[in-house]
């Protein structure tokens, strides 16, 4: 192994007593080269492995979007798996023709959505995109579109991109998008590195964005899954939108649903030309490979991709200094909790290292937040902090969940008290050393997995500089107690923050078993309780009245144990009718 002077440094770095000098920290031996089209390569050779973990980062994320195309970076990530002129179809000419036809129909559909949005603005329909309010011409166009999809499917080799990799023994193919970057990665057997070059250069050189519109439905499902079907998903999105004033971090990575409905293929192609040009991409390879062979393959495969005429636009909008504290009070099916989030600094800012150490002092089982809020005061079941320096700007969060009778307000006071103590009281040497020992150990731990090392290289490169992997530990070990106190003073003013408090939605907890059902077998109880839940969910009074009318006959037919429950069912229906007629829906 070529990890620089590792054995020699151990005695110095790992004695865990004196603060370590920056130059003693282990370095990742990264080889770099650049192609003439501007594409950059990072290589770490790990001959003990039987694989190569390989990936690339596009320096683009949702922060590069604008209103109207929010979510397109993430959508794009999905489209990159749809194949190329060679992969994914048996007849590229016919495939291209069908895609053009589809686009013409979609253009007409988007015109109808323009009208639908106007009808929505005028209050004529409740939802511009609902299936229920579709005009007949839209239904007709969608039917014609479905026919074209069927035609195209006859020519398609479904998910061939995935199949080729799978068959060859590649694994873990995936990608992710965040506010700043889009990362694609996979692990291939060490003897099949050339396959990776073939496949990745192919999808960058001749991509075909087929199944554009069915993939949109998949992304809608992803949004439902992550944002709308989790206890706090919608509020996380709202809080982010509220925290960032002017910066494009305010919209969600997955995009606003109304934008998702109207992206065009032309917009996608323009986006690709702007942000997926070779000069905006960096490849990383970690594993059992030969550097010279990798250079040769890179030149032959990725060297084919023409450079872009100009660099992609910078993100120019800076976050406005915040003038007043912002607050969000949410209610959800969740533990009462609080988050205090402060504006701080972006990736590699000189203060980011002291903020990392601050977070180290606060976090963990022996950290200040857990010790004070969970163990000593017993007002929280959990507490922690999060230092989040992104590419363009950053934030620092303190959060905690309540325990017993404590309220989010109690937690807020306790969290602020911990910040005050950092600012005003000396930080013990041993406590600071504990955090630094953990930093030293993690400088080795994070290298152990080749795949995890790959991800770190791609993420750091995407955020601004992969060399952060070798600078982070050294810079963090140089942080002094005075540095920590300085950043804890500089960034943690109430006017510089947004506060989210969450309370548990009333009635979210299930009702107790009504006395009418006592003594019944628990299975019968559960069935009846389930029926009552159903009744309470009905929104139509006539349906309920119909149910009421059928009750006597059903009671006759019901098995004996159920008989006892009928007065309760009847009462529940009546209550629901009253509730609906009074216009209040719980």
């Amino acid at each position, binding site marked *: 192994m070529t990890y620089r002077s590792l054995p020699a440094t151990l005695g110095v770095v*790992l004695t865990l007593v004196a603060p370590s000098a920056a130059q003693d920290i282990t370095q990742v031996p990264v080889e770099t080269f650049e192609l003439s089209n501007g594409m950059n390569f990072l290589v770490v050779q790990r001959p003990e492995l039987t694989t190569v973990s390989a990936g690339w980062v596009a320096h683009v994320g949702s922060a590069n979007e604008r209103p109207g195309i929010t979510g397109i970076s993430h959508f794009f990530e999905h489209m990159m798996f749809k194949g190329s002129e060679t992969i994914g179809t048996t007849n590229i000419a016919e495939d291209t023709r069908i895609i053009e036809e589809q686009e013409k129909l979609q253009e007409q559909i988007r015109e109808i959505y323009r009208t639908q949005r106007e009808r929505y603005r005028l209050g004529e329909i409740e939802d511009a995109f609902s299936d229920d309010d579709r005009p007949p011409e839209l239904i007709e166009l969608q039917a014609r579109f479905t026919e074209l999809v069927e035609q195209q499917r006859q020519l398609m080799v479904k998910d061939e991109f995935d199949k080729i990799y799978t068959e060859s023994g590649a694994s873990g193919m995936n990608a992710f998008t965040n506010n700043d970057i889009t990362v694609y990665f996979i692990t291939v057997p060490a003897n099949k590195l050339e396959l990776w070059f073939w496949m990745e250069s192919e999808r960058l050189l001749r991509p075909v964005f087929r199944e554009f519109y069915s993939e949109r439905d998949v992304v809608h499902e992803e949004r439902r899954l992550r944002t709308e079907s989790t206890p706090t998903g919608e509020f996380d999105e709202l809080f982010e939108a509220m925290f960032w004033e002017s910066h494009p971090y305010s919209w969600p990575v997955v995009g606003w649903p109304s934008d998702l409905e109207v992206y065009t293929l032309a917009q996608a192609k323009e986006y690709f030309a702007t942000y997926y040009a070779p000069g905006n991409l960096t490849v990383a390879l970690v594993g059992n490979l030969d550097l010279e062979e990798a250079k040769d393959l890179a030149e032959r495969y990725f060297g084919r991709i023409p450079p872009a005429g100009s660099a992609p636009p910078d993100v120019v909008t800076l976050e406005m200094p915040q003038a007043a504290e912002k607050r969000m009070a949410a209610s959800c099916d969740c533990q009462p909790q609080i988050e205090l989030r402060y504006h701080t600094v972006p990736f590699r800012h000189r203060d980011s290292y002291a903020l990392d150490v601050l977070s180290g002092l606060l976090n963990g089982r022996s950290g200040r937040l857990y010790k004070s809020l969970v163990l000593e005061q017993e007002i929280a079941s959990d507490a922690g902090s999060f230092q989040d320096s992104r590419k363009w700007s950053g934030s620092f969060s303190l959060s905690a969940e309540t325990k017993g009778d404590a309220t989010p307000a109690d937690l807020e006071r306790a969290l602020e008290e911990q910040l005050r103590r950092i600012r005003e009281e000396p930080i013990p040497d041993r406590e600071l050393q504990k955090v630094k020992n953990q930093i030293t150990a993690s400088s080795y731990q994070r290298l152990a997995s080749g795949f995890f090392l790959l991800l770190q290289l791609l993420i750091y490169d995407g955020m601004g500089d992969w060399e952060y992997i070798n600078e982070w530990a050294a810079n963090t070990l140089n942080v002094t107690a005075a540095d920590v106190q300085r950043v804890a003073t500089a960034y943690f003013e109430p006017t510089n923050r947004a506060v989210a408090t969450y309370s548990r939605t009333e009635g*979210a907890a299930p009702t107790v078993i009504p006395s009418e059902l006592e003594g019944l077998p628990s299975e019968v109880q559960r069935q009846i309780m389930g029926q009552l839940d159903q009744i309470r969910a009905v929104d139509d009074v006539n349906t309920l009245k119909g149910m009421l009318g059928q009750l006597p006959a059903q009671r006759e037919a019901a098995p004996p144990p159920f008989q006892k429950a009928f007065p309760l069912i009847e009462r529940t229906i009546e209550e629901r009718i009253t509730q609906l007629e009074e216009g209040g829906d719980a």
Partner: protein
Amino acid sequence: MKFSAVVLILACSAATIAQPVAVTTSDLPERPEQLVYDELDFTVPDGNGFRHVLSNGVAVYIAEDHTFPLVSLRMTLRQGSYLEPADKVGLASLTGRMMRTGGTQSMTPETFDEETAFLAANISSSGGNAQASASLGCITPQLDACLGLFFEMLRTPRFDESRLQIEKGNILESMRQRNDDAGDILGREWDFLLRGEDHYSSRRMTEANLNAISRADLADFHEKYWRPENMVIAVSGDVDTNAFLAKLEENLADWPGEGADAKWPPPQPTHTVKPGVYSVEKDIPQGKVLIGHLVPQWTDWDNPDRAALQVMQHILGGSGFTSRIMKRVRSDEGLAYSAGSRFSFDALEPGTFTLSFQSKSPTVALAAKIAIEEVTRIQTEPVTPEELGVAKSALVETFPRRWESARQRASIFATDAYLGRSHSYWQNWRPQIEAVTANDVLRVAKKYLSPEEIVFLVVGKWDEIAPGDADDRANMMEFFGGEVTHIPLRDPLTLK
């Protein structure tokens, strides 16, 4: 020379027509199938070469790797929640949790946490249904100090009373959140439907159970079941095998195996599964779905059906976009973000065959219909030679990856010892996959899958799920004639 010149001219002109801007390197293959690869050199490691036995009978698997100054140790014990009294459900897990958080004979909980953090060590312990485990991650120069903490935790946990009260309070808070996430509700009711509410592998701790557990119960459970005779240890990283064995002897040899009988294997479920549709009401825009049934317990690891089932599972729903269910439900129809199937080989109790997905309420029935159609299809039509080839090749080619790190090697062989499986299982693994035919896949699909006897559980808004999609392609009347059992949301603290 002439010949080269011609090639060059042709190459240039072709490139000019097809790709006016791009640089040309036209010797690249047109299709990836044309690439030629060197052989990958890989031999399956022999578990017996890693195995050692301490003087008190504990098996230890050690895989050295000196790349980084890091050591990892994990011990696995044959014991678990099946040994708890019925009124103290959660005792095994609370014992595991409190060993790590409740201090030791010589150290208060605060001191233990502080020392562990200062050494930058990761120490944990936990109790599961049929397995307890404790692990240590440490940098080499601090190994002796780390081992000192680890074995003190293992052998003389304090179960500090005031810390126990705090932990119990925190557990109560997490119980209150049992109905918050639809996925948690889905998992809980699924276990209850398949294994009953009282089987050790499905039952959950209630507030009454929590209140009934005392410090003495934890100490007793630890004394009886955290014992060397139940234990196997996996060690990997920057250690010298002989020196490390000596350290283990030092810390464990005076701990003879004389605890209570841990009654291995754990008891089988006696619950009778009732096929049908079950729903739990939750106000979310998707239905979260599990569909499936029990499959036989897997004790014969030489049985070649294992290989045929793995190939079947790969083709049906276990391989992402290459699998049939993902292709149809996600890729063709856009009905779900994730959709697939799973066949579990469980050595201790019946396993499960499961279809899972989540879809917007109106298309739950359609996605389910498609997934079940695929189950039926794999039982009635042989898979294509291409599908068979892709699945077998993928399984065989990814096999070396399981052995990539020293930690994986030690851990795989320790798991063999825990399960009572011969290490030779791994020598036969690839040949058995390579021998699978389309007929084998058809045969095991018929033998092990029963789409007509499924439990179909959905968490979501039933009123929006039942009527099906706007184009009338499927609705919930298609399953069990529209009959459904509505399971009410349980009280999170009593689970009634």
